């Protein structure tokens, strides 16, 4: 792979050890909760973290190179535009730092700004810009010196909700036209799933899963991975029930599932199962009929994202359901309400150890 990262960084008591690779023209999203080590991993690649291990770009080790010689362009979280330099000077900064003459650097900066931030006044101070404009300028600054690797650190963190769609499409175009390896650091599933070819999930300083968004969606390796891609994940012992049916006994609650055809009818430990939130139906009255799984519990949280609502339920086991906002209104679902949730046994996908290749 053109960019091969295997680094270890000590941060006081904890160690962050991250390994992954990125191909040319590939966008990898480095995702994880706050404090999982995403930014540290990025700093290790950029050469400002004091890491051990190796970072190899096009077969050449970067570990003995100072940050200014690594050829890595970073658009930082919150932009990190220099407040006392104008927008133009900010974008020209990496060129000037590399020794390009003032006029040539400014010409190039104007050119990049024209592409990425045509509405921003080049002579303005960063403090007068909106979050979205700052991010555009930061992107221009990252690309001005024609880096070999592009890193975007939480590009949407300081951007208003209404400015996000436009910035997202700009980022998608920019990423697509950048030929080298591209890394996006984010904690936002929507950004990661819409912009990245591959996800690298970080938890507590370790990579817990890598795969395409679809891989992770269908086979999340950890509870965090499942939450991230918006899937319900269960783990427990699978025991046979009536003909063709099994019960998955999790730590909290049981699920009725379809017994896998080829699996010997005997209890199996450490079985994981996923259930798409869209397959869960909600009811105000106890439902009757075919669904094998019926749970009762209070609504904990309702989060709306563009016409769809994700409803967190305090059922046993806890569930996340996804409904259209119309259904939420029609059912009158709000936090604190008691509801019934149901799903068909056939919708629960099982991952039996040894039966399928491990996703880790």
């Amino acid at each position, binding site marked *: 792979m053109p960019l091969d990262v295997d680094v270890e960084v000590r941060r006081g008591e904890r160690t962050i050890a991250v390994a992954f690779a990125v191909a040319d023209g590939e966008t990898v999203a480095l995702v994880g909760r706050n404090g999982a080590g995403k930014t540290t991993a990025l*700093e290790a690649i*950029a*050469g*400002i973290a004091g890491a051990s291990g190796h970072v190899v770009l096009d077969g050449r080790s970067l570990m003995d190179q*100072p*940050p*200014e010689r690594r050829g*890595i362009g*970073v658009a*930082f979280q919150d932009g*990190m535009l*220099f*407040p*006392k*330099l104008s927008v133009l000077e900010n974008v020209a*900064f*990496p060129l*000037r*730092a*590399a020794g390009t003459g003032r006029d040539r650097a400014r010409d190039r900066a104007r050119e990049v700004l024209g592409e990425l931030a045509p509405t921003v006044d080049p002579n303005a101070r960063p403090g007068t810009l909106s979050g979205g404009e700052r991010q555009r300028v930061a992107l221009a*600054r*990252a690309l001005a*010196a024609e880096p070999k690797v592009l890193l975007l650190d939480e590009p949407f963190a300081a951007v208003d909700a209404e400015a996000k769609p436009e910035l997202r499409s700009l980022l998608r175009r920019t990423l697509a036209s950048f030929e080298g390896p591209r890394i996006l650091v984010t904690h936002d599933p929507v950004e990661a799933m819409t912009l990245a070819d591959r996800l690298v999930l970080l938890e507590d300083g370790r990579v817990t899963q890598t795969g395409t968004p679809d891989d992770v969606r269908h086979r999340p390796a950890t509870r965090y991975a499942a939450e991230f891609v918006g899937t319900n994940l269960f783990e427990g012992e699978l025991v046979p029930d009536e003909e063709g049916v099994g019960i998955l006994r999790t730590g909290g609650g049981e699920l009725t599932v379809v017994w896998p055809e080829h699996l010997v009818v005997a209890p199996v430990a450490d079985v994981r199962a996923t259930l798409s939130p869209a397959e869960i139906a909600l009811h105000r009255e106890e439902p009757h009929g075919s669904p094998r799984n019926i749970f009762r519990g209070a609504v904990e949280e309702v989060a709306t994202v563009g016409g769809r609502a994700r409803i967190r339920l305090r059922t046993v086991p806890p569930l996340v359901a996804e409904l259209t906002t119309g259904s939420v209104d029609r059912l009158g679902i709000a936090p604190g309400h008691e509801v019934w949730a149901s799903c068909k046994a056939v919708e629960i996908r099982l991952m039996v150890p040894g039966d399928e290749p491990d996703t880790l």
Partner: protein
Amino acid sequence: MQRRLPLSFIILGTIGAAFVALPVIGLVLRAPWGRILEILTGPGASIALRLSLEVSLLATLCAVVFGVPLAWILARGTFRGRAILRALVILPLVLPPVVAGVGLLQALGRRGIVGGWLERIAGIQLTFTTAGAVVAATFVSIPLVVLSAEAGFRSVDPRFERAAAVLGAKPGYTLRRVILPMVAPQLVAGAVLAWARALGEFGATITFAGNLEGRTQTLPLAVFQTLQTDQEGAIALSLVLVILSICVLVALRNRITGTG
């Protein structure tokens, strides 16, 4: 809504304010307004004034040139003994100036631990020279630059330095283009305070550099000497220092009143 203050506080506060204001009022009331121009343009006064400006500005320059890098080291360094170094740098602020003068004599005087060597090798003598007055004024004013600049450097998010490094800037370039412009207000404030301190410096100067007219006799020394023979002359010279001090207050008004 106005909060009512206890009467005792109002009385004590008023006494405090009067105490601070009265000496200045006294100077203004007793000033020989009739012959003030004559005094100030007279040879003794104008020489002292010019020397004072020269010495205090050079001392400020030295304090900034050495104090700002020192402040950067204190703000960003992670070495052992940093707290001790900071205490040492701030010491001149609390040290009695005359003690500073005695110390400077032992260090840089003709028989001082460095001064003797300085004279033998480089032929530089500091005692009883204008350079010595600059050294004394620098010594007492450098802590003000260091304190102000260090506070400024600390207020700069270190991520800016890391960002600049990733963007290809060497540390010196980052400091010049990114960090120093961000702390410019604190540097100016530190320099102005240092200049005011240097301008008023008396004890260390007279002890280390002596009181030679035209060479080391700065305004405060001239005031002190004139006071023995000509009280009105001393008041006139003092008024010059009062006016310069008020200029400092005006220059720093935003930081003192805390408004924009």
